[in-house]
């Protein structure tokens, strides 16, 4: 309800967008450089590439339908896996100093490895295809969740835990009622970072495949199709924006639910 009432106000907040677009258009028109086509050219090119379908299919054409859903599916699968894995491992090492000592060097090592350099390893382990791409995405984006979860789990007020113990809460209850809720803001900050990283990793993982948005970007680069390259970049930006807005809605729900409970 409140959301609907605030729609005009929300739209008014987007005033920067047309300003930026206008400046971009004017600047690129003034430059007249083939590497920097104006946004109007990019948009037309994007429509020709992807949005010539019927309204029933959200205007998506066959090329778009052959690439977008696969890419998005892999992205979300990788993100969910990274979210679950990151929270589990993060909370575990946040609460257990011993485990932390065992895993810390491996984790520090793992997260400093550039994903493009790891592709051969994932290719060897999972062969080409969706599994390898999801593995690459998961591995590349798990770190922000993991670290934020660990930091969050570590920084719990000792008093809260003591109180819970005094009231006889079991280990599992303490985890659900104290540890996770108080680590939640940090975990969500990590999840949000991971979501946009996931888009980046998706592109890298798809460079070596034969379909997906990343593949289309690579093909456009190889063919010196600059409007195509920009089209893919803009598409990724829009996708990222939409994903982030969806995430913020989810976060608001979950965090207010927690606040209300506490």
């Amino acid at each position, binding site marked *: 309800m409140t959301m609907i009432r605030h729609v005009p106000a929300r739209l008014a907040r987007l005033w920067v967008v047309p300003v930026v677009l206008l400046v971009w258009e004017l600047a690129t028109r003034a430059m007249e450089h083939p590497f920097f086509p104006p946004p109007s050219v990019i948009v037309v090119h994007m429509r020709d590439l992807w949005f010539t379908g019927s309204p029933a299919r959200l205007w998506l054409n066959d090329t778009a339908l052959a690439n977008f859903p696969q890419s998005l599916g892999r992205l979300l699968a990788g993100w969910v896996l990274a979210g679950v894995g990151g929270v589990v491992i993060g909370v575990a090492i946040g609460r257990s100093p011993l485990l932390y000592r065992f895993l810390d060097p491996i984790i520090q090592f793992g997260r400093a490895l550039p994903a493009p350099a790891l592709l051969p390893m994932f290719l060897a382990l999972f062969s080409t295809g969706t599994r390898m791409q999801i593995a690459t995405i998961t591995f590349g984006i798990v770190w922000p969740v993991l670290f934020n979860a660990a930091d969050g789990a570590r920084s719990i007020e000792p008093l809260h835990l003591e109180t819970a113990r005094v009231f006889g809460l079991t280990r599992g209850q303490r985890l659900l009622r104290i540890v996770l809720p108080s680590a939640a803001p940090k975990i969500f900050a990590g999840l949000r970072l991971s979501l946009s990283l996931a888009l980046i990793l998706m592109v890298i993982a798809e460079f*070596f495949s034969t379909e997906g948005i990343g593949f289309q970007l690579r093909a456009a680069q*190889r*063919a010196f199709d600059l409007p195509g390259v920009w089209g893919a970049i803009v598409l990724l930006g829009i996708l990222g924006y939409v994903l982030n807005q969806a995430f913020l809605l989810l976060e608001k729900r979950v965090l207010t639910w927690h606040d209300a409970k506490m």
Partner: protein
Amino acid sequence: MLGFRRLSVLCIAALLITACGGGGDSAPPSNGPEKTEIRIGMLPLPEVAPIQLAIDKGYFAAEGLTVQTELISGGAAAMPDLVSGKIDILHSNYVSALLASASGTVKIKIVGDAYAAQPGNFLLMTKKDSPITEIADLRGRTIGVNTLNNISTLSVSALLKPAGLRPEDVKFVERPFPEMAGALESGQVDVALLPEPFHQAAAKTLGAVTLSDLFTGPLADFPIAGYLVTETFAQQHPKAVAAFQRALRKAAELARSDSAEVTAALQKYTKIDQATASTMKLGGFSTAVDPARVQRVADLMLEFGYLKQKFDVASIVAGGASG
């Protein structure tokens, strides 16, 4: 103050000398290159051995050039570096060069030829007991190439044609050469396109067998790569370009006549070890750009849809490059 005055005197003297020399072409000072520090962007491939040789043997120095080499990740990827002036001369395969030129994104000139394929330089290879024994068996198969939309996919397409296959009948996948043997072994690719020394290595470690030489028949002596500058650079530095061409030609002649020199040069700018390098055939180092030969690349590109209309290669060959 004194320093400044001395500097201006020097400047004036320098101006006078260049102005005086400007009249006669034979006067040594005027023949010096307009730019003496030249940066060449190149892939660490055997085909650019003459550049290393020209540095080591002092051919560039004799022409008044100080050459610095920089590694690039590919001809297409480094095109922006050429435009922005991070590098002056770019080593690039002809397909990327012609694609870039035809797309109008960059205006380039070909100033030198690097390499034309010789038998045994590039092979299509399969696993030991692969059911694929001839080109016609490739229908529906996956072919590993190092770069899509490039000389590899183009030449494979041309090779498929006599067997009645279209490029759409096979699937191309991009994989770096060092990973190709692994991809072949695991079946991620059915056929791998491998240059020297990778095909020797694949045969040794994996027992990979040759399906076909890539550049045979109509593709024999196919031009692979050349050296590019921007049109502006060619206009503003004709003497530097000519100096580069003379040194390159001398080095290419040496590379053609003495394979031991090439082997030694490879040690300096690649990670190919001595033993592997000495098994390589090479031999296709080129001394001049033959516009007619490079036109074959453009015509094939037109035939397979890489180019939308006929492209006249002679229009982008710099003066002196073919002589």
